[in-house]
Protein backbone atom coordinates (compact mmCIF):
# COMPACT_ATOMS: atom_id res chain seq x y z
CA UNK A 1 0.00 0.00 0.00
CA UNK A 2 1.35 3.41 -0.95
CA UNK A 3 1.60 6.52 1.23
CA UNK A 4 -1.00 8.10 -1.05
CA UNK A 5 -3.52 5.43 -0.10
CA UNK A 6 -2.70 5.95 3.57
CA UNK A 7 -3.36 9.71 3.23
CA UNK A 8 -6.64 9.04 1.46
CA UNK A 9 -7.76 6.63 4.20
CA UNK A 10 -6.70 9.19 6.81
CA UNK A 11 -8.96 11.75 5.11
CA UNK A 12 -11.93 9.35 5.15
CA UNK A 13 -11.26 8.50 8.80
CA UNK A 14 -11.05 12.19 9.81
CA UNK A 15 -14.33 12.95 8.05
CA UNK A 16 -16.07 10.25 10.08
CA UNK A 17 -14.24 10.81 13.39
CA UNK A 18 -14.35 14.61 13.69
CA UNK A 19 -17.90 15.12 12.44
CA UNK A 20 -18.98 12.17 14.60
CA UNK A 21 -17.37 13.80 17.63
CA UNK A 22 -19.19 17.06 16.91
CA UNK A 23 -22.52 15.27 16.62
CA UNK A 24 -21.93 13.13 19.70
CA UNK A 25 -21.26 16.22 21.79
CA UNK A 26 -24.20 18.15 20.29
CA UNK A 27 -26.69 15.31 20.65
CA UNK A 28 -25.33 14.64 24.16
CA UNK A 29 -25.89 18.10 25.58
CA UNK A 30 -29.22 18.49 23.77
CA UNK A 31 -30.22 15.15 25.30
CA UNK A 32 -29.37 16.40 28.78
CA UNK A 33 -31.58 19.44 28.25
CA UNK A 34 -34.34 17.30 26.74
CA UNK A 35 -34.23 15.00 29.77
CA UNK A 36 -34.56 17.99 32.06
CA UNK A 37 -37.71 19.15 30.28
CA UNK A 38 -39.27 15.68 29.99
CA UNK A 39 -38.66 14.99 33.69
CA UNK A 40 -41.04 17.87 34.47
CA UNK A 41 -43.36 17.60 31.47
CA UNK A 42 -43.36 14.25 29.58
CA UNK A 43 -45.89 15.60 27.03
CA UNK A 44 -43.05 17.57 25.38
CA UNK A 45 -41.08 14.40 24.56
CA UNK A 46 -41.65 14.47 20.77
CA UNK A 47 -40.76 18.13 20.41
CA UNK A 48 -37.56 17.99 22.41
CA UNK A 49 -36.54 14.72 20.71
CA UNK A 50 -36.56 16.51 17.33
CA UNK A 51 -34.42 19.27 18.85
CA UNK A 52 -32.02 16.67 20.17
CA UNK A 53 -31.70 14.98 16.77
CA UNK A 54 -30.75 18.16 14.87
CA UNK A 55 -27.03 18.10 15.79
CA UNK A 56 -26.88 14.43 14.77
CA UNK A 57 -26.73 15.16 11.03
CA UNK A 58 -23.04 16.16 10.98
CA UNK A 59 -22.07 12.61 11.87
CA UNK A 60 -24.17 11.32 8.97
CA UNK A 61 -22.54 13.83 6.58
CA UNK A 62 -19.10 12.71 7.72
CA UNK A 63 -20.10 9.08 7.20
CA UNK A 64 -21.37 9.89 3.69
CA UNK A 65 -18.14 11.64 2.66
CA UNK A 66 -16.07 8.88 4.23
CA UNK A 67 -18.12 6.26 2.39
CA UNK A 68 -17.72 7.98 -0.98
CA UNK A 69 -13.97 8.38 -0.41
CA UNK A 70 -13.57 4.70 0.57
CA UNK A 71 -15.57 3.70 -2.49
CA UNK A 72 -13.40 5.77 -4.81
CA UNK A 73 -10.20 4.44 -3.27
CA UNK A 74 -11.50 0.95 -3.85
CA UNK A 75 -11.33 -0.15 -0.23
CA UNK A 76 -14.97 -1.28 -0.26
CA UNK A 77 -14.46 -3.84 -3.01
CA UNK A 78 -11.30 -5.15 -1.41
CA UNK A 79 -8.89 -3.78 -4.01
CA UNK A 80 -7.47 -0.47 -2.77
CA UNK A 81 -5.93 1.66 -5.51
CA UNK A 82 -2.21 2.36 -5.35
CA UNK A 83 -2.47 6.13 -5.08
CA UNK A 84 0.38 8.57 -5.51
CA UNK A 85 1.21 10.79 -2.52
CA UNK A 86 -0.26 13.85 -4.23
CA UNK A 87 -3.53 12.03 -5.04
CA UNK A 88 -3.74 10.78 -1.44
CA UNK A 89 -3.23 14.31 -0.14
CA UNK A 90 -5.97 15.50 -2.52
CA UNK A 91 -8.37 13.01 -0.88
CA UNK A 92 -7.26 14.18 2.57
CA UNK A 93 -7.84 17.85 1.63
CA UNK A 94 -11.23 16.99 0.12
CA UNK A 95 -12.37 15.35 3.36
CA UNK A 96 -11.25 18.20 5.63
CA UNK A 97 -14.22 20.60 5.10
CA UNK A 98 -16.82 18.21 6.51
CA UNK A 99 -14.38 16.92 9.13
CA UNK A 100 -13.62 20.35 10.63
CA UNK A 101 -16.95 22.07 9.99
CA UNK A 102 -18.77 18.95 11.17
CA UNK A 103 -16.93 19.08 14.50
CA UNK A 104 -17.46 22.80 15.10
CA UNK A 105 -21.02 23.01 13.80
CA UNK A 106 -22.07 19.86 15.68
CA UNK A 107 -20.94 21.34 18.98
CA UNK A 108 -22.48 24.72 18.30
CA UNK A 109 -25.71 23.26 16.97
CA UNK A 110 -25.96 21.24 20.17
CA UNK A 111 -25.65 24.37 22.26
CA UNK A 112 -28.25 26.15 20.13
CA UNK A 113 -30.55 23.15 20.50
CA UNK A 114 -30.18 23.36 24.28
CA UNK A 115 -31.33 26.98 24.17
CA UNK A 116 -34.16 26.11 21.77
CA UNK A 117 -35.29 23.33 24.13
CA UNK A 118 -35.58 26.09 26.75
CA UNK A 119 -38.02 27.88 24.44
CA UNK A 120 -40.05 24.69 23.96
CA UNK A 121 -40.13 24.19 27.74
CA UNK A 122 -41.71 27.59 28.31
CA UNK A 123 -43.60 28.18 25.06
CA UNK A 124 -44.36 24.86 23.30
CA UNK A 125 -46.52 26.66 20.73
CA UNK A 126 -43.34 28.39 19.46
CA UNK A 127 -41.75 25.06 18.49
CA UNK A 128 -41.46 26.00 14.79
CA UNK A 129 -39.60 29.21 15.50
CA UNK A 130 -37.45 27.54 18.14
CA UNK A 131 -36.37 24.86 15.67
CA UNK A 132 -35.16 27.46 13.16
CA UNK A 133 -32.32 28.62 15.42
CA UNK A 134 -30.40 25.33 15.52
CA UNK A 135 -31.42 24.65 11.90
CA UNK A 136 -29.50 27.78 10.84
CA UNK A 137 -26.27 26.18 12.04
CA UNK A 138 -26.99 23.24 9.75
CA UNK A 139 -26.47 25.51 6.70
CA UNK A 140 -22.71 25.53 7.22
CA UNK A 141 -22.49 21.79 7.70
CA UNK A 142 -24.38 21.35 4.40
CA UNK A 143 -22.03 23.76 2.61
CA UNK A 144 -19.03 21.83 3.89
CA UNK A 145 -20.69 18.54 2.89
CA UNK A 146 -21.25 19.82 -0.66
CA UNK A 147 -17.65 20.95 -1.07
CA UNK A 148 -16.31 17.69 0.36
CA UNK A 149 -18.50 15.54 -1.93
CA UNK A 150 -17.63 17.60 -5.05
CA UNK A 151 -13.93 17.53 -4.15
CA UNK A 152 -13.82 13.79 -3.40
CA UNK A 153 -15.72 13.05 -6.60
CA UNK A 154 -13.36 15.30 -8.56
CA UNK A 155 -10.11 13.66 -7.43
CA UNK A 156 -8.77 11.61 -10.39
CA UNK A 157 -7.86 8.07 -9.38
Amino acid sequence: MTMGTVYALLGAALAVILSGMGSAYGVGIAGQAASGVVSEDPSKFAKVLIMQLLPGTQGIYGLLVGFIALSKIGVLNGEPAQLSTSTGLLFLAACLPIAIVGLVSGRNQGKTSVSAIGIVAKKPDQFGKAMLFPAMVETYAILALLVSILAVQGVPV
Partner: protein
Amino acid sequence: MADNYIYAVARIRSLEMSLFSKSTIEQLLSEKTYEDCLRFLKDHGWGNSDNDSEDASYMLLAENKKTWDTIKEMTSDMEPFRVLTIPDEYHNLKAAIKTAVKGEIEAAIFFEGTVISGEKMVDIVRRNAYEELPESMRECAKEAYEGFVHTGDGQLCDIVIDKAALEAILDAGEKAEEELIKDYAKTYVDVANIRTTVRCAKTGKSADFMRRALVAGATFEVEKLVSAALAGVEDVIRYLSESGYTDAAESLKKSSSAFECWCDNMIIETIKPQKYNSFTIGALIAYILARLNEIKTVRIVLSGRQNGLEEAAIRERVREMYV
Protein backbone atom coordinates in the same frame (compact mmCIF):
# COMPACT_ATOMS: atom_id res chain seq x y z
CA MET B 1 -18.00 23.25 34.13
CA ALA B 2 -20.76 25.11 32.29
CA ASP B 3 -22.07 21.85 30.83
CA ASN B 4 -22.70 20.39 34.31
CA TYR B 5 -25.96 22.31 34.63
CA ILE B 6 -27.59 21.72 31.22
CA TYR B 7 -30.05 19.14 32.56
CA ALA B 8 -30.82 21.21 35.63
CA VAL B 9 -31.34 24.47 33.74
CA ALA B 10 -33.71 22.81 31.26
CA ARG B 11 -35.68 21.42 34.20
CA ILE B 12 -35.72 24.86 35.79
CA ARG B 13 -37.10 26.31 32.53
CA SER B 14 -40.08 23.96 32.90
CA LEU B 15 -40.46 24.77 36.60
CA GLU B 16 -40.45 28.50 35.87
CA MET B 17 -43.80 27.94 34.18
CA SER B 18 -45.35 27.36 37.60
CA LEU B 19 -43.83 30.46 39.21
CA PHE B 20 -46.32 33.15 40.11
CA SER B 21 -46.42 35.97 37.59
CA LYS B 22 -47.67 39.48 38.27
CA SER B 23 -51.13 38.46 37.03
CA THR B 24 -51.25 35.44 39.40
CA ILE B 25 -50.43 37.74 42.31
CA GLU B 26 -53.22 40.06 41.09
CA GLN B 27 -55.61 37.10 41.22
CA LEU B 28 -54.44 36.32 44.75
CA LEU B 29 -54.97 39.95 45.72
CA SER B 30 -58.50 39.81 44.35
CA GLU B 31 -59.36 37.06 46.88
CA LYS B 32 -61.36 38.80 49.58
CA THR B 33 -60.53 36.79 52.68
CA TYR B 34 -57.55 35.01 54.23
CA GLU B 35 -59.30 31.65 53.79
CA ASP B 36 -59.96 32.37 50.10
CA CYS B 37 -56.27 33.18 49.65
CA LEU B 38 -55.30 29.86 51.26
CA ARG B 39 -57.74 28.00 49.01
CA PHE B 40 -56.30 29.80 45.96
CA LEU B 41 -52.78 28.74 46.96
CA LYS B 42 -53.85 25.12 47.53
CA ASP B 43 -55.48 25.11 44.09
CA HIS B 44 -52.11 26.14 42.70
CA GLY B 45 -50.41 23.19 44.40
CA TRP B 46 -49.00 25.02 47.40
CA GLY B 47 -48.45 23.21 50.69
CA ASN B 48 -48.46 19.48 51.30
CA SER B 49 -51.42 17.40 50.22
CA ASP B 50 -51.08 15.37 53.44
CA ASN B 51 -51.37 18.48 55.59
CA ASP B 52 -54.70 20.27 55.44
CA SER B 53 -53.71 22.75 58.11
CA GLU B 54 -55.21 26.20 57.68
CA ASP B 55 -51.98 27.68 59.04
CA ALA B 56 -50.16 29.54 56.26
CA SER B 57 -46.77 29.22 57.96
CA TYR B 58 -46.77 25.44 57.34
CA MET B 59 -47.67 26.02 53.72
CA LEU B 60 -44.90 28.59 53.23
CA LEU B 61 -42.36 26.36 55.01
CA ALA B 62 -43.40 23.45 52.78
CA GLU B 63 -42.86 25.60 49.67
CA ASN B 64 -39.42 26.66 50.88
CA LYS B 65 -38.50 23.01 51.50
CA LYS B 66 -39.84 21.96 48.08
CA THR B 67 -37.59 24.55 46.40
CA TRP B 68 -34.42 23.32 48.10
CA ASP B 69 -35.39 19.66 47.63
CA THR B 70 -35.79 20.27 43.88
CA ILE B 71 -32.32 21.81 43.68
CA LYS B 72 -30.82 18.95 45.70
CA GLU B 73 -32.37 16.48 43.22
CA MET B 74 -30.56 18.24 40.36
CA THR B 75 -27.07 18.62 41.79
CA SER B 76 -25.06 16.93 44.48
CA ASP B 77 -22.72 19.88 45.03
CA MET B 78 -24.56 22.43 47.16
CA GLU B 79 -21.45 24.52 47.92
CA PRO B 80 -22.07 27.11 45.13
CA PHE B 81 -25.52 27.75 46.67
CA ARG B 82 -24.06 28.57 50.09
CA VAL B 83 -24.07 32.28 49.30
CA LEU B 84 -27.87 32.10 49.60
CA THR B 85 -27.84 30.46 53.04
CA ILE B 86 -25.19 32.71 54.64
CA PRO B 87 -27.83 35.08 56.11
CA ASP B 88 -29.62 32.07 57.69
CA GLU B 89 -26.38 30.74 59.18
CA TYR B 90 -25.49 34.08 60.74
CA HIS B 91 -29.04 34.53 61.97
CA ASN B 92 -28.67 31.19 63.75
CA LEU B 93 -25.43 32.42 65.29
CA LYS B 94 -27.19 35.52 66.66
CA ALA B 95 -30.00 33.40 68.03
CA ALA B 96 -27.51 30.91 69.50
CA ILE B 97 -25.54 33.61 71.35
CA LYS B 98 -28.69 35.13 72.82
CA THR B 99 -30.01 31.70 73.77
CA ALA B 100 -26.69 30.67 75.32
CA VAL B 101 -26.49 33.83 77.42
CA LYS B 102 -30.14 33.74 78.50
CA GLY B 103 -29.82 30.04 79.29
CA GLU B 104 -32.80 28.70 77.40
CA ILE B 105 -33.20 26.97 74.04
CA GLU B 106 -35.96 28.20 71.79
CA ALA B 107 -35.76 25.81 68.84
CA ALA B 108 -38.34 27.72 66.83
CA ILE B 109 -36.04 30.71 66.36
CA PHE B 110 -33.49 28.80 64.28
CA PHE B 111 -33.50 28.38 60.51
CA GLU B 112 -33.26 24.82 59.26
CA GLY B 113 -31.05 23.56 56.43
CA THR B 114 -27.85 25.26 57.58
CA VAL B 115 -24.47 23.51 57.77
CA ILE B 116 -24.43 23.75 61.58
CA SER B 117 -27.83 23.40 63.24
CA GLY B 118 -29.05 26.04 65.69
CA GLU B 119 -28.89 23.65 68.65
CA LYS B 120 -25.33 22.65 67.79
CA MET B 121 -24.41 26.34 67.53
CA VAL B 122 -25.80 27.02 71.02
CA ASP B 123 -23.63 24.20 72.31
CA ILE B 124 -20.54 25.62 70.57
CA VAL B 125 -21.17 29.11 71.98
CA ARG B 126 -21.77 27.74 75.52
CA ARG B 127 -18.43 25.90 75.41
CA ASN B 128 -16.71 28.91 73.75
CA ALA B 129 -15.47 26.36 71.18
CA TYR B 130 -15.39 28.86 68.31
CA GLU B 131 -12.84 26.79 66.40
CA GLU B 132 -15.73 24.41 65.56
CA LEU B 133 -17.43 27.20 63.61
CA PRO B 134 -16.53 28.07 59.99
CA GLU B 135 -13.47 30.31 59.91
CA SER B 136 -15.39 33.41 58.78
CA MET B 137 -17.71 33.13 61.82
CA ARG B 138 -15.18 32.63 64.62
CA GLU B 139 -14.04 36.18 65.25
CA CYS B 140 -17.46 37.79 65.01
CA ALA B 141 -19.00 35.07 67.21
CA LYS B 142 -16.44 35.72 69.93
CA GLU B 143 -16.80 39.50 69.68
CA ALA B 144 -20.61 39.38 69.66
CA TYR B 145 -20.76 36.91 72.56
CA GLU B 146 -18.37 38.87 74.78
CA GLY B 147 -20.09 42.14 73.88
CA PHE B 148 -23.50 40.70 74.73
CA VAL B 149 -22.31 39.16 78.00
CA HIS B 150 -20.67 42.38 79.20
CA THR B 151 -23.18 44.96 77.99
CA GLY B 152 -26.40 42.96 77.50
CA ASP B 153 -26.89 45.04 74.34
CA GLY B 154 -28.66 42.81 71.81
CA GLN B 155 -28.39 45.40 69.05
CA LEU B 156 -24.61 45.48 69.37
CA CYS B 157 -24.55 41.70 69.03
CA ASP B 158 -26.79 41.98 65.95
CA ILE B 159 -24.69 44.56 64.10
CA VAL B 160 -21.42 42.68 64.70
CA ILE B 161 -22.89 39.47 63.25
CA ASP B 162 -24.88 41.17 60.48
CA LYS B 163 -21.74 42.93 59.28
CA ALA B 164 -19.80 39.66 59.34
CA ALA B 165 -22.60 38.02 57.33
CA LEU B 166 -22.45 40.76 54.69
CA GLU B 167 -18.66 40.46 54.51
CA ALA B 168 -19.03 36.68 54.08
CA ILE B 169 -21.49 37.24 51.21
CA LEU B 170 -19.15 39.75 49.58
CA ASP B 171 -16.27 37.30 49.97
CA ALA B 172 -18.33 34.45 48.48
CA GLY B 173 -19.17 36.73 45.54
CA GLU B 174 -15.52 37.60 44.95
CA LYS B 175 -14.49 33.95 45.02
CA ALA B 176 -17.33 32.75 42.78
CA GLU B 177 -16.75 31.99 39.09
CA GLU B 178 -20.38 32.56 38.15
CA GLU B 179 -21.12 36.15 37.20
CA LEU B 180 -24.58 36.08 38.79
CA ILE B 181 -23.18 35.18 42.23
CA LYS B 182 -20.78 38.15 41.98
CA ASP B 183 -23.64 40.49 40.96
CA TYR B 184 -25.97 39.09 43.59
CA ALA B 185 -23.41 39.50 46.39
CA LYS B 186 -22.66 43.08 45.38
CA THR B 187 -26.34 44.02 45.05
CA TYR B 188 -27.20 42.33 48.36
CA VAL B 189 -24.49 44.25 50.22
CA ASP B 190 -25.35 47.54 48.49
CA VAL B 191 -29.02 47.17 49.43
CA ALA B 192 -28.11 46.21 53.01
CA ASN B 193 -25.84 49.27 53.29
CA ILE B 194 -28.58 51.56 51.96
CA ARG B 195 -31.14 50.02 54.32
CA THR B 196 -28.82 50.43 57.33
CA THR B 197 -27.98 54.04 56.39
CA VAL B 198 -31.65 54.96 56.07
CA ARG B 199 -32.56 53.34 59.40
CA CYS B 200 -29.60 55.00 61.15
CA ALA B 201 -30.54 58.38 59.68
CA LYS B 202 -34.13 57.97 60.87
CA THR B 203 -33.15 56.87 64.39
CA GLY B 204 -30.24 59.31 64.77
CA LYS B 205 -27.50 56.73 65.35
CA SER B 206 -23.91 57.84 65.95
CA ALA B 207 -21.17 57.77 63.33
CA ASP B 208 -19.34 55.12 65.36
CA PHE B 209 -22.42 52.86 65.37
CA MET B 210 -22.80 53.25 61.59
CA ARG B 211 -19.12 52.48 60.97
CA ARG B 212 -19.59 49.23 62.92
CA ALA B 213 -22.65 48.30 60.86
CA LEU B 214 -21.78 49.36 57.29
CA VAL B 215 -19.69 47.19 54.99
CA ALA B 216 -16.94 48.47 52.71
CA GLY B 217 -16.01 46.80 49.43
CA ALA B 218 -19.19 47.08 47.37
CA THR B 219 -20.38 50.23 45.53
CA PHE B 220 -20.58 52.72 48.39
CA GLU B 221 -17.88 54.35 50.48
CA VAL B 222 -18.73 53.92 54.15
CA GLU B 223 -17.66 57.45 55.13
CA LYS B 224 -19.92 59.05 52.50
CA LEU B 225 -22.90 57.01 53.73
CA VAL B 226 -22.08 57.98 57.34
CA SER B 227 -21.85 61.70 56.45
CA ALA B 228 -25.16 61.56 54.58
CA ALA B 229 -26.90 59.71 57.42
CA LEU B 230 -25.59 62.16 60.04
CA ALA B 231 -27.04 65.04 58.00
CA GLY B 232 -30.48 63.38 57.84
CA VAL B 233 -32.76 61.35 55.58
CA GLU B 234 -32.97 64.15 52.99
CA ASP B 235 -29.22 64.02 52.51
CA VAL B 236 -29.32 60.23 52.20
CA ILE B 237 -31.94 60.61 49.46
CA ARG B 238 -29.78 63.21 47.69
CA TYR B 239 -26.69 61.02 47.97
CA LEU B 240 -28.54 58.00 46.57
CA SER B 241 -29.82 60.06 43.60
CA GLU B 242 -26.28 61.28 42.85
CA SER B 243 -24.94 57.71 43.11
CA GLY B 244 -27.29 56.38 40.42
CA TYR B 245 -29.80 54.85 42.85
CA THR B 246 -32.60 57.16 41.74
CA ASP B 247 -35.27 54.51 42.22
CA ALA B 248 -34.18 53.97 45.82
CA ALA B 249 -34.38 57.72 46.45
CA GLU B 250 -37.83 57.91 44.85
CA SER B 251 -39.13 54.96 46.90
CA LEU B 252 -37.79 56.57 50.09
CA LYS B 253 -39.73 59.73 49.30
CA LYS B 254 -42.91 57.66 48.92
CA SER B 255 -42.97 55.49 52.04
CA SER B 256 -41.03 53.01 54.14
CA SER B 257 -42.92 50.07 52.63
CA ALA B 258 -42.17 51.31 49.08
CA PHE B 259 -38.48 51.46 50.06
CA GLU B 260 -38.54 47.91 51.50
CA CYS B 261 -40.20 46.80 48.28
CA TRP B 262 -37.43 48.46 46.24
CA CYS B 263 -34.79 46.60 48.28
CA ASP B 264 -36.24 43.22 47.27
CA ASN B 265 -36.98 44.32 43.70
CA MET B 266 -33.30 45.17 43.21
CA ILE B 267 -32.42 41.50 43.74
CA ILE B 268 -35.06 40.44 41.21
CA GLU B 269 -33.72 42.97 38.68
CA THR B 270 -30.24 41.48 39.18
CA ILE B 271 -31.39 37.93 38.45
CA LYS B 272 -33.77 38.67 35.55
CA PRO B 273 -31.15 38.17 32.77
CA GLN B 274 -30.88 34.54 33.94
CA LYS B 275 -34.21 33.81 32.23
CA TYR B 276 -32.16 33.63 29.01
CA ASN B 277 -29.26 31.59 30.37
CA SER B 278 -29.37 27.96 29.22
CA PHE B 279 -26.11 26.60 30.58
CA THR B 280 -24.86 27.77 33.96
CA ILE B 281 -25.70 27.60 37.65
CA GLY B 282 -26.92 31.21 37.46
CA ALA B 283 -30.33 30.02 36.24
CA LEU B 284 -30.66 27.72 39.30
CA ILE B 285 -29.70 30.46 41.74
CA ALA B 286 -32.11 32.83 40.03
CA TYR B 287 -34.89 30.24 40.38
CA ILE B 288 -34.24 29.83 44.12
CA LEU B 289 -34.25 33.60 44.65
CA ALA B 290 -37.40 33.91 42.54
CA ARG B 291 -39.13 31.24 44.65
CA LEU B 292 -38.03 32.89 47.91
CA ASN B 293 -39.32 36.22 46.59
CA GLU B 294 -42.60 34.56 45.60
CA ILE B 295 -43.00 33.00 49.05
CA LYS B 296 -42.23 36.34 50.71
CA THR B 297 -44.80 38.12 48.53
CA VAL B 298 -47.45 35.51 49.33
CA ARG B 299 -46.62 35.90 53.04
CA ILE B 300 -47.13 39.68 52.71
CA VAL B 301 -50.50 39.21 51.01
CA LEU B 302 -51.65 36.61 53.56
CA SER B 303 -50.61 38.65 56.59
CA GLY B 304 -52.22 41.72 55.02
CA ARG B 305 -55.49 39.83 54.60
CA GLN B 306 -55.22 38.30 58.08
CA ASN B 307 -54.73 41.74 59.66
CA GLY B 308 -57.48 43.35 57.63
CA LEU B 309 -55.24 45.73 55.65
CA GLU B 310 -56.74 47.64 52.74
CA GLU B 311 -55.99 46.20 49.30
CA ALA B 312 -54.05 49.35 48.32
CA ALA B 313 -51.81 48.96 51.38
CA ILE B 314 -51.10 45.32 50.52
CA ARG B 315 -50.54 46.16 46.85
CA GLU B 316 -47.89 48.73 47.80
CA ARG B 317 -45.93 45.99 49.56
CA VAL B 318 -46.19 43.41 46.76
CA ARG B 319 -42.78 42.60 45.26
CA GLU B 320 -41.88 42.46 41.59
CA MET B 321 -42.11 38.94 40.17
CA TYR B 322 -39.34 37.12 38.26
CA VAL B 323 -41.57 35.86 35.42
